[in-house]
């Protein structure tokens, strides 16, 4: 919700389980965005039911997903993926143990006509997903870069929305 009670046009979703090591990097990053971004940007955390995301992003213009990933890249690498333009590389499947992942949710939202104009994922390469483990130092160190890039992305999207208004 925004200050006037309407649905915020932009949404940032931190996805992951803080009790599973580097899987918690998404929630950690979105918490750091609180206070740094315009109050008109909604920030939420989710633990991994990708189907529920469709409902979260209904009525939004732009959605940014922040999640952990395992692609074989150096831990702490920050991948930016435009989910409406780029096919999600198979080796970069956003971590989910359930039947529906983020890519399928984007497909389903598209089929249902519920897809925002922009859906961008920032995926941070993780290394250790052990239960109860802290976030690895090399992955935590990537948070600064991710926060800066997401804030810039939001500014770009806000600017784009303003120029179309």
């Amino acid at each position, binding site marked *: 919700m925004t200050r006037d009670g309407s649905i915020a046009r932009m949404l940032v979703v931190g996805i992951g389980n803080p009790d599973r090591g580097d899987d918690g990097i998404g929630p950690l990053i979105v918490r750091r965005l609180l206070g740094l971004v315009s109050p008109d940007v909604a920030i939420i955390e989710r*633990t*991994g*039911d990708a*189907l*529920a995301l*469709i*409902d979260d992003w209904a009525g939004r213009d732009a959605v940014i997903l922040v999640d952990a990933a395992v692609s074989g890249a150096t831990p702490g690498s920050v991948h930016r993926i435009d989910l409406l333009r780029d096919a999600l590389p198979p080796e970069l499947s956003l971590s989910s*143990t*359930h*039947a*529906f992942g983020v890519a*399928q949710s984007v*497909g*389903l939202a598209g*089929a*249902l*006509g519920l897809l925002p104009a922009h859906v961008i994922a920032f995926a941070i390469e993780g290394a250790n997903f052990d239960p109860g483990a802290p976030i690895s130092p090399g992955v935590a160190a990537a948070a600064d870069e991710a926060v800066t890039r997401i804030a810039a992305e939001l500014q770009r999207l806000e600017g784009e929305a303003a120029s179309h208004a």
Partner: protein
Amino acid sequence: MATKTIRVDYIARVEGEGALELHIKDGRATSAKLAIFEPPRLFEALLRGRGFAEAPDITARICGICPVAYQMSSVHAMEQALGVTVDGQLRALRRLLYCGEWIESHALHVVMLHAPDFLGFQDGIQMAAKHGDAVRGGLALKKAGNELMRVLGGREIHPVNVRVGGFYRVPRRAEFAPITEQLKRARELAVATVRWVAAFPFPNYQRDYEFVSLRHPDEYPINEGRIVSNRGLDITVDEYDSEFEERHVAHSTALQSVLKRRGSYLVGPLARYNLNFDRLPADVQDMARESGLAPVCRNPFQSIIVRALELVYACDEALRIIAAYEPPDAPSVPLEPRAGIGHGCTEAPRGILYHRYEIDDKGAIVTARISAPTSQNQLSIEEDLCEVANQSSDLSDDALRDRCEQTIRNYDPCISCSCHFLKLAVHRE
């Protein structure tokens, strides 16, 4: 001599990893093997030495789709071992949490995983373009189930609020207000889902199964009851081992459960419905009849209608429990460790889930045994596959492969739970 093999290397739209291999000789299926290759997870061994209170949270991790089932079977077993009974509002809250899991699990399976089989779509995403209302309804139903889990269990997946003896925290009445409106809407969507699936084309297939489910004196079974069948089985949960045994088969990391004297049996929504039709409210019974179901249904493909009916029931039951809710004085009953043996059996969305624990005088687990519904249904699935293949000899290999996958999904199998499970290969000779 005509022989052929039909193989599905990785069965989609089920929870977990498994495969199917079907051998056909001169038009007759000679064997069907449901190969479960997901690695065994050894939960029963890792529970040994852990405290009795840890069982609900450890066993919940066996499955992301039915964690409440694991929590409920384990708490019932531990409470029996400790000589404690949980009743009143705490018992009602457990049933409410289980309604949340039934709604979440059934909505996902009926709409997103099984319906595409009947309508000829590759998956739920392709189906959504033509059946948008049904898919949106399914997602909203699932969300209502999720929300019930969150309000009562602390979070949607792997709830953290269940303990032996009750809950860590019980909700205030006001906390149920938003979910009440959501459940009323979910109930309407569930009724629409019943009508939608009832109109699907169903293969003309029936088999004379032994159905096994819980049966309770007053309620449609969820958490409690005797274990009964349509062939005279009628035992307490404690007597499970006298009637059932698990066998290892070479092609599966899941043990196969059989009735000692009779072999395969079927658990899940179809069994619950057939053995407990009289425990359903009159309006749900009427909905079943309007959907073309008799009080006993032996066509496993129509289990999708039964799941949809159970969605309606679970919404009704959740609303009933919330309306009657008064917060109990304490969130749990006191427990004292003591040596003992306890058995628990509850109705997971896909059928009965049995737990047995032996604990020592300090409350540490000495032995643990868990028999998951998909383990129990495995042999029945294989027998269905042979029969379905025999009745579908006119189908092409591709069409037969699709029909076999649909047959497997009739069971909403949870391979992750059973592995102790799916690829399809058909060998034609």
